[in-house]
C-alpha cells in the first residue's frame, strides 16, 4: 500500500508540473499585453515599457517560467498586478469560504442524492424511479447561473427564507451550496441507483434475503456497503468539478472565495493571481483524488490486487 501511495504521489507531482507549464504557456500566448493593461489607456509607450521591465515581462518565456518555478518552490506566488498584494495572502484569505462551500455542496449531494438513488433503485421502473431520474437529468442540465438566480428569486426574495447573498452562517451557505451541489446530487442518485441495482442482483444478496433478513437490513448492511466505493471516488472527482463551478456560483451569490478571486483576475488579466489560483486548484484536485484513491484502497481490498 505504501508503494502505491508513493507512486501515486509522484504521479501527482508530475501532473502539477504539467499543469504549471500548461497554464504559464497559455497565458504567455494570450494576445494581451499585461503591461499595457496595468499602464492604462492614457499611458505613453515609455511608461508601458518601464512597467513591462518592472514586471519582468520583457524576458523570454523560459526565463520567466524558471523564475516563477523557483519562487513557487519557496512558496512565493508573486504579487497581483492590480492590487499589488501578495497572491499567497489573497489565496489564503479565500480558501476557507470556498472550502465551506464545497463541504456544504458535498453534504447536500449526499443528503439528497443517496436517499433518492436508493429510493429509485428499490422502486425500479415505477414512478419514483422516473421522478428521480427526471430530477437527475434536470439537475445536470440546468445552467448554474440560471439555477442560482432562480433560487435567489424564489427562496430568498419571494419566500424570504434565506439572505439574498453574501457571506455568513449556514443560512448564507445553503443556497450557494445547493446551486453547486444540485447537479451532483442528481448524478449521485443515478450512480448509487445503478450500483445498488447491480449489487442487489448478486448472489450474496440473494443469500442474505434467503436467510430471512429484513429488506432494510439487506440494503443497508449488505448492498449499500458494496455499492459505496464509486461514491468515494466521485467525491474526489467532484472537488475538480467544484473548482470550476465555484467561479459561477460564487459570482452569483457574492461568496468571497477562490472562484470570485480568479473571476475578477481574469477580467483584468491579473496573471499572477490567475496562475496562482490555477496551480493551487491543481494541488487541491490532485490531493483530493489521491485521498479518494487511498480511502477506496482501505475500503475495498480487491483494488490492492488489481
Amino acid at each position, binding site marked *: 500500500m505504501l508503494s502505491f501511495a508513493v507512486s501515486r504521489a509522484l504521479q501527482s507531482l508530475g501532473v502539477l508540473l504539467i499543469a504549471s507549464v500548461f497554464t504559464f504557456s497559455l497565458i504567455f500566448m494570450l494576445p494581451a499585453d499585461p503591461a499595457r*493593461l496595468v*499602464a492604462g*489607456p492614457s499611458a505613453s*509607450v515609455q511608461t508601458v515599457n518601464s512597467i513591462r521591465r518592472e514586471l519582468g515581462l520583457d524576458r523570454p518565456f523560459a526565463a520567466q517560467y524558471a523564475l516563477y518555478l523557483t519562487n513557487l518552490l519557496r512558496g512565493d506566488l508573486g504579487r497581483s498586478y492590480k492590487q499589488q*498584494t501578495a497572491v499567497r495572502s489573497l489565496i489564503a484569505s479565500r480558501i476557507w469560504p470556498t472550502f465551506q462551500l464545497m463541504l456544504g455542496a458535498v453534504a447536500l449531494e449526499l443528503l439528497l442524492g443517496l436517499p433518492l438513488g436508493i429510493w429509485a433503485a428499490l422502486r425500479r421502473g415505477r414512478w419514483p424511479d422516473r421522478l428521480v431520474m427526471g430530477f437527475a437529468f434536470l439537475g445536470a442540465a440546468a445552467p448554474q447561473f440560471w439555477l442560482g438566480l432562480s433560487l435567489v428569486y424564489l427562496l430568498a426574495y419571494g419566500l424570504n427564507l434565506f439572505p439574498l447573498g453574501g457571506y455568513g452562517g449556514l443560512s448564507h451557505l445553503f443556497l450557494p451550496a445547493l446551486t453547486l451541489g444540485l447537479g451532483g446530487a442528481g448524478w449521485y442518485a443515478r450512480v448509487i441507483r445503478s450500483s445498488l441495482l447491480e449489487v442487489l442482483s448478486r448472489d450474496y444478496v440473494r443469500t442474505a434475503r434467503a436467510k430471512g433478513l429484513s429488506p432494510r437490513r439487506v440494503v443497508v448492511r449488505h448492498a449499500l456497503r458494496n455499492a459505496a466505493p464509486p461514491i468515494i471516488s466521485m467525491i474526489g472527482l467532484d472537488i475538480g468539478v467544484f473548482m470550476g463551478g465555484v467561479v459561477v456560483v460564487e459570482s452569483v451569490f457574492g461568496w468571497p472565495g477562490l472562484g470570485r478571486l480568479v473571476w475578477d483576475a481574469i477580467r483584468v488579466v491579473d496573471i499572477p493571481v490567475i496562475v496562482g489560483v490555477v496551480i493551487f486548484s491543481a494541488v487541491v484536485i490532485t490531493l483530493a483524488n489521491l485521498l479518494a484513491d487511498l480511502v477506496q484502497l482501505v475500503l475495498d481490498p480487491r483494488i490492492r490486487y488489481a
Partner: protein
Amino acid sequence: MNRLTGQTLLGLTLLLGTAHAAPQQGGSITVSYKDDVTTLDPAIGYDYQNWPMEKMVFDALLDYIPGGTTLSPRLAAKMPDVSRDGQTYTFTLRKGVKFHNGRTMTADDVKYSLERVLDPKTKSPGQSFYTDIAGAQAFVDGKAKSVSGIAVLAPDKVKITLNAPNAAFLNIMAMNFAFIVPKEAVAKAGADFGHQPVGTGPFRLKSWVSGQQLQFERNPNYFMAGLPYLDGVTVKVGLDPSVAYLSLQRGEVDLLGDGIPPAQFLQVTRDPKLKANVFSRTSVNTTFLSLNTGVGPLKDVRVRQAINMAIDKTKILRIINGRGVVARGVLPPLMPGYDKAEAGYAYDPAKARALLAAAGLKGGFETTLYTTSTDPNPRIAQSIQQDLAQIGVKVQLKSLAQSSVIDAASTPKTAAMVWSGGLAWTQDYPDPSDFYWPILSCRSAVQGGWNWPFVCDKALDARAEKADRMVAPAQQAARLKEYASLFAALNKQAVWVPVFHEVRYTMKSDRLVGDVDNLLDPTHFINYERLSVKK
C-alpha cells in the same frame, strides 16, 4: 450672472430650502458592486469603481463644483497664481489640514505625492499625465533624484513649473492621481498602501474584508465645515446586479453602484413608484466604431464616410434600451468645447452606396469588425454588420475577450474596424485635450496606443499644441473653439463613427438623500461627502 437674477435665484433657493430641509448629519448607507475593489491607492486605481471610493479617503489641491466642470480649490486655499507665460503655478495650501494619522499636511507632501506617481516603481497608470512638469522625464528615466519643476517654497507653498504652457494642467491637478498622500504612511504600508490608505478625505477606511465589504467612517477632523453628512458608508462587493436590485427593494442596499441591471431596466423605468428613485445623466463618454485608416479600402476617406452614413445609430440605441443619446462628433455634450452645431453624418445608405461607387468599390468589399464578447456588444456588432451589408460591405465579426480586442485594436494595420462598446472613451478630466492626445493624436498612433484609427495629422497636432498654450482665462473661449474645429476636421476625415454617448442610470433607496449632481457627478460619479439619509 447679473445682480437681479442672482437675487432671484437666492430667494428661490431659500424658498426651496424651507421645502427641502438641509441634509441631516448622521446615519450610514450601503452601496453595492459586483466586482471587488482592487485598490484604494490613488496612484494606482484607475476605474469607475475605485475612483469615488478613493475620493472618500483623499483630496487633491483642486476639485470641481459638484455636478459640473468648474474647478474650485480644495486642499489649496485658493486657485493658484499662474505666471504670465502660463508655465508656473504657485499653490498656497489650506491651513491646518490633517491627515487621518493626525499629522498636518505640508507642501512636502504635495511634492512627494506627485513624485510617487512619476516614479516607475509605483507603476502608476497616471504617470504620463505628469511628465510635462519640468524635470519629470529626467526623474522618470532615473537621471534625477527629484523633480526639479516641483519646488517647495514654504511649508504651505509649492511651485510647479511646466515644460510648456498647458491649459489643462489644473484639470490634471484635480485628478485622483494627484491626491495627496503622507510619505510615512506609504512607507509603513509598503505595497499594501492601497489596502491601508491614509489621506485627508471626508472618510477613513475602517475595515476591508477582501471579497466582502469595505467600511468607511466619518473623518471627525475633516476640513470642510459640516461635511460629510453621513457617519459611515459600507461598500458591499460581490453582489450580482440582479441580486443587488432585489436587495435594494428589500432595503438592504441604498445605492446600486453598477446601475440598474438590463433585465430590470424597463420594469423600473415604467413603474412610477420605482422611477422616483431613478436618476440619469448623459455621461462624458463617446462610444464609437473606429475605422483603421491604414487598412485596405478604409484608407480612402470616401469609404470611411460611406460607412458613417450606412450605420443606423437609432437601431443601436434600441439594442441598449435607449440608454444613450446619438453622437454626432467626437466630444460628448458635457465636455467643454462640445459643438452643438456639429451635424455629423446622417443615416443615408443611398448616398453611402454612391460614395463607395465613387471610390471604385461598387461591388462592396470584405472587412473585419472586432468587438468584445460581452453582451450587448456582439448584438450591436451584428446590427452594424447588417447595416453595412446593405451597402455591399461584407463584415466578418471577431468577438473576443476585452484584452484581445485592445491588443488587436492597438496594433497597426491589424483591426480594420473596432466597436468600442465596453471600451468606450470616457473623460479623465473635463477638457477637450483628453479626447485628442490619448486617442487621436500622432503620439498615440503607435503600437500599444489607444489611437485605433491610427490617424496622424501633424497639422492638427500642431494646432492642438497651440491651443493648449492658450492658458489665459480670456483665451478660453477661443481655445475651446479651436478644439471644436479640430474635431470637426477629424469628423470630415471620418476616422470614427461616433455612435452614442452613454446615459448612466442609477437607483437609490427611499431613505438615501442625494441629487443627480452627487449621484452621477461627471468626474467623481458619486460625491459621498454630500449624501445623507432621511431620519
